[in-house]
């Protein structure tokens, strides 16, 4: 019996050709091994999809004159919900201030403040070295 192999990933992504769909469905009904593999693949896929979508570092968006992306990526950004999220953000920022720069999710009010201020720079394109720029964002360091 031929197992499904990379058809399983295509199945998860909705990328099977129509003639492959019935074969995959039938095979999965009878094969424990492929069902197990499907679960493992699904968890790896979910892990990567759980990574937060990062905002552009402020220095970079200033350098390229880009304001927030009006066309979101197809995945929804990780939602920061309620007080727990606010606390998480505060912890993350204060911890990050002590260590290496790490891009982080920026709350919408901060974004407006930051990006509103650079609109006059639109069109100016200069290549700048943005090393350490993320540490400056959010008042860290």
């Amino acid at each position, binding site marked *: 019996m031929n197992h499904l*192999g*990379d058809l*399983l*990933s*295509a199945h998860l*992504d909705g*990328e099977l050709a129509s003639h492959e769909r019935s074969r995959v469905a039938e095979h999965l009904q009878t094969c424990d091994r492929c069902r197990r593999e499907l679960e*493992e*693949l699904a*968890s*790896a*896929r979910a*892990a*990567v*999809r*759980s*990574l*937060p*979508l*990062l905002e*552009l*570092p402020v*220095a*970079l*968006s200033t*350098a*390229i*004159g*880009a*304001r*927030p*992306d*009006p*066309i979101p*990526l*197809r*995945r929804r950004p990780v939602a920061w919900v309620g007080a*727990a999220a606010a*606390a*998480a953000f505060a*912890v*993350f920022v204060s*911890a990050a201030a*002590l*260590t*290496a*720069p*790490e*891009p982080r999710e920026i709350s919408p009010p901060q974004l407006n403040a930051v990006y509103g201020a650079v609109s006059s720079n*639109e*069109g100016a*394109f200069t*290549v*700048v*070295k*943005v*090393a*350490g*720029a*993320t540490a400056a964002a959010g008042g860290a360091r």
Partner: protein
Amino acid sequence: MNEPLPETWEDVARKHGRKIYNFAYRLCGNPDDAADLVQEVLLRVRRGLADYTPGSFDGWLWRITRNAFLDDVRRRKRRPTSPLPDHTDRMSEWSSPGPDEVLAGLRLGEDIQKALLDIPIEFREAVVMCDVVGMSYEEIAAAVAAPIGTVRSRIHRGRKLLRERLT
């Protein structure tokens, strides 16, 4: 799927900058290299817009993006004195004693990023295009100039390798 040419590279920066940055960050694992790559891509876009012939704009942009990334990888190989900083380890220094669930969640993200950096580039690229950027197999195939079957296989093998590293 023909798309109108974006009028200026500023439009490109505004519409696609964040996508390119997330792609670059997940491929190289640190903000400085990702920012450098975004700027390099936009420079190439600005130079190339004049010669752009109508077609799939996204395909054109992603070909530029991944070529810029691969050029950067090749440059690094010739310059072994400047490896990618080991960002992940520094993060874990401050977070290791934290009993906090919040920090645990953040560490989890770091684990995933570290696992991504650990798998071969062509698998990492395919997985990131699929699961971070949200491209279809067809779009990925156009961007990396490979058949769809190859893309499917790379995504599949990438996920299997990630799974091994995350358990």
